[in-house]
């Protein structure tokens, strides 16, 4: 059993009670909600006549269903409009802060909470969205929940949970040029598997993480869930504090110094005990691309796709299924795979540093004719910042479409979808069958810079040749 880790300390400080079943009742410091997984939870509250216990500890935005071309109301999709109206009405009725379209604060929930300073070290954070693990980048315990649990948090600001084990995932050394945080997490999942993290929180540690920016740490923690770990985190350090200082909801004045002292005290002790420890070398990580239908099915861009015989027996059936669905062959190089659509955005890679890296590749070049390429900033704030830096001009000059913020084609709940058997190069987080809106659509996950390179050449390309 782990001891002395950030996870242990934060868990202990938020423990309300031990329930008769043996589960822990855990206080949730920050609850984030959006239009998809909350309306049924509010309906359950109404059925039971329950109020929201701590309305100011919940923050709402709209992200999954928003169209990215025009956001004029009413939304063209009547179902999307109904969901947005339900969220607005629920927030009004319960006095919950809502960051709506045009507020300057709207965006993907996992982009806006950090940029507003709502996400802070030492918090427990829950949201009806599996990518809530993102917020662990700040040294928070953050995890996704379902709608019944959204109800529980609204009604009680707590959840009934079993404590997770803690695995330290250390990566040491400096990343090479053209290798990004996305490659780090794809590499980790490739080696630990998509269910390797079930039952664990992942503590991302080592000298590589010490060098990563907050946005890069968010990219890694975001995809902890793709490795089966409901929650991933990085211990807070000077990088964390520097990011938070001065943000709208960060502690101010005399509270700031107290906060930093408290945050420091929560970091895992030097002699902390873990349930498991694994170590990777940054030097072994190359630009990485998925080829299959799970985020664990990936190769370095200069590798060939694995033969079935080279895979562990337990992975052969899903690999066979993946090859048939993707129409790719064992032994072929991933480089050169033709691409139809390029998507830059999502809660994994829709932040300003992601757009800067992609723009650097795109600048002065043109999107390959026949390729549809578009950029969806993660939030209104990211969009404004990118426009202030002229990134929108660079993208549009190259032939990219420049859109409004939202989840967009990561999960295709809005009009942005693949068509038929189209294949995308995508900076998002899931390559599941049908994920991007077409039952036969195919997704290759990669870093935003790699997506940008694919847009220029029309095929999977090693971005290192562009730098």
């Amino acid at each position, binding site marked *: 059993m782990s001891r002395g880790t950030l996870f242990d300390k934060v868990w202990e400080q938020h423990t309300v009670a031990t329930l008769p079943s*043996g589960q822990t009742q855990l206080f949730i410091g920050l609850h984030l909600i959006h239009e998809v997984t909350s309306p049924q939870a509010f309906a359950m509250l109404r059925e039971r006549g329950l109020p929201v216990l701590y309305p100011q500890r919940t923050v709402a935005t709209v992200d999954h269903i928003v169209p990215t071309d025009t956001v004029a109301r009413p939304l063209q999709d009547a179902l999307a409009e109904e969901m947005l109206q339900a969220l607005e009405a629920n927030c009004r009725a319960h006095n919950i802060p809502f960051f709506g379209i045009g507020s300057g604060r709207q965006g993907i929930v996992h982009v806006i909470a950090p940029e507003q300073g709502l996400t802070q070290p030492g918090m427990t954070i829950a949201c009806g969205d599996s990518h809530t693990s993102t917020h662990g980048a700040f040294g928070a315990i953050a995890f996704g929940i379902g709608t019944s649990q959204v109800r529980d948090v609204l009604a009680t600001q707590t959840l009934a949970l079993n404590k997770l084990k803690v695995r330290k995932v250390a990566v040491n050394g400096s990343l090479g040029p053209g290798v990004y945080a996305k490659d780090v997490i794809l590499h980790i999942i490739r080696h630990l598997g998509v269910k390797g993290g079930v039952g664990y929180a992942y503590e991302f540690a080592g000298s590589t993480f010490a060098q990563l920016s907050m946005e890069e740490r968010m990219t890694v923690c975001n995809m902890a869930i793709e490795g089966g770990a409901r929650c991933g985190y990085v211990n807070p350090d000077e990088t964390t504090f520097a990011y938070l200082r001065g943000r709208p909801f960060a502690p101010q004045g005399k509270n700031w110094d107290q906060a930093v002292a408290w945050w420091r005290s929560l970091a895992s002790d030097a002699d902390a005990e873990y349930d498991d420890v694994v170590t990777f070398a940054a030097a072994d990580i190359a630009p990485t691309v998925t080829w299959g239908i799970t985020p664990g099915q990936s190769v370095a861009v200069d590798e060939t796709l694995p033969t079935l015989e080279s895979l562990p027996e337990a992975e052969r059936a899903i690999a066979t299924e993946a090859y048939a669905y993707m129409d790719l062959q064992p032994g072929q190089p991933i480089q050169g795979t033709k691409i139809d659509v390029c998507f830059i955005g999502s809660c994994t890679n829709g932040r300003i540093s992601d757009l800067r890296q992609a723009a650097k590749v795109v600048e002065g070049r043109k999107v390959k004719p026949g390729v549809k390429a578009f950029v969806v900033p993660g939030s209104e704030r990211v969009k404004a910042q990118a426009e202030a830096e002229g990134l929108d001009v660079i993208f549009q000059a190259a032939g990219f479409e420049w859109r409004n913020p939202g989840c967009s084609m990561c999960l295709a709940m809005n009009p942005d979808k693949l068509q038929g058997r189209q294949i995308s190069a995508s900076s998002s987080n899931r390559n599941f069958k049908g994920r991007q809106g077409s039952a036969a659509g195919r997704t290759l996950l990669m870093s935003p810079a790699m997506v940008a390179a694919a847009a220029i050449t029309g095929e999977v390309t090693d971005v290192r040749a562009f730098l």
Partner: protein
Amino acid sequence: MSKIERITGRGLPLRGNDIDTDRIIPARFLRCVTFDGLGEHVFADDRQSGQHPFDLPQYQGARILVVNANFGCGSSREHAPQAIARWGIQAIVGESFAEIFAGNCLAMGVPCLTAAPAQVQALQTLLEDQPTTELTLDLQVLTLTAGDQVIPLTMAESTRQMLLSGQWDACGQLLANQDKIHEVAARLPYVRWAVS
């Protein structure tokens, strides 16, 4: 809430590892403000051929779904277990489950139990060969009986207790500790900073 001790009925074998919640209920069906009607869209994309186990006549009316490893991975959408339950499934037996999915099932009173991979696969074969086999899932003794076979099952003891005692919907228990909730909130520094 009802106590869940025993579930009987026919089984539905669904083979494959890493079946994610996007496949269980594709995102386009999440454009809704209630869970009503989700049952008819369960596995909508996978069922286009009409040969999916959820479409085969011999499995209509089945109560117990039998799956392989890492079932329910991906998105946290409760719409996924809601769609499965509204189709008619009352319990799921598998090699392993994704955590958020299993938690969502518990909150709905749908037990997710694990068994050894070889036994799960043998059970799937049995249900493919003899779909009319009656299954009895007993949470008291953690077994699944299929004909003359008795398969040992596992689940977290806390989860089992919540189902057996009828306390699988935690909301009431959580609310009963309201004083303690306020005590913890008062002790957490960031709650103070936000109001000062």
